[in-house]
């Protein structure tokens, strides 16, 4: 399935754009997405960490993604 992903901060710099489409197997998990992202953009492996938010909430690697989800890459935050 084709999902749309938003990228902020250094994630946007790594991907090269703030919104992009990404191909993931039907019923793919967040964990699978993160692995695929690192495969395609090795610079993600250099970060302290990165999380995925789905529909505005942090989710764990086991979370199953759907095609209509708002999927966002959250690199290490540094507000405040």
């Amino acid at each position, binding site marked *: 399935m084709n999902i749309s992903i938003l990228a902020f901060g*250094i994630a946007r710099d790594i991907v090269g754009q703030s919104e992009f489409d990404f191909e993931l197997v039907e019923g793919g998990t967040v964990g699978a997405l993160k692995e695929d992202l690192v495969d395609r953009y090795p610079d993600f492996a*250099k970060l302290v960490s990165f999380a995925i938010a789905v529909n505005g909430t942090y989710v764990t690697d086991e979370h199953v993604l759907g095609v209509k989800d708002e999927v*966002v890459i959250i690199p290490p*935050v*540094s*507000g*405040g």
Partner: protein
Amino acid sequence: MIEIQLLDRELDPKYCTECVYTPEAGGIAVFVGTVRNQTADKRVLRLEFEAYEKMALSEMRKIAERAAEQWPVKRIVIHHRTGVLYAGDIAVIIAVSTPHRKAAFEACAFAIDTLKETVPIWKKEIFEDGEVWVAAHP
């Protein structure tokens, strides 16, 4: 009472402090986070803050709600700025009122500590010879 805002204009400590005043509260703790003019030994020209706005607001609200569960919070205000900031500018204000002062300090410290861990806001430091996303790399 909880007030959460993400603003692209100057933050106002007076407004935030007055916002948490209430006659039932005896202690108000306020944290004001400003932009320093250097990191390690390098002079910072400016900072650029960006936020995943919808989620930044909801995560800040969660922090306020968790603070209100753990301490007898009367009112709490969290304002965070976005956009371009210079040394001395205020990036964040957290104001908390409680009946007694100890809880106000604890709740305020909890809120800023948690904000720096969970709220999807990122800052980029711009130096004379380059720029870096803060906290991104080990």
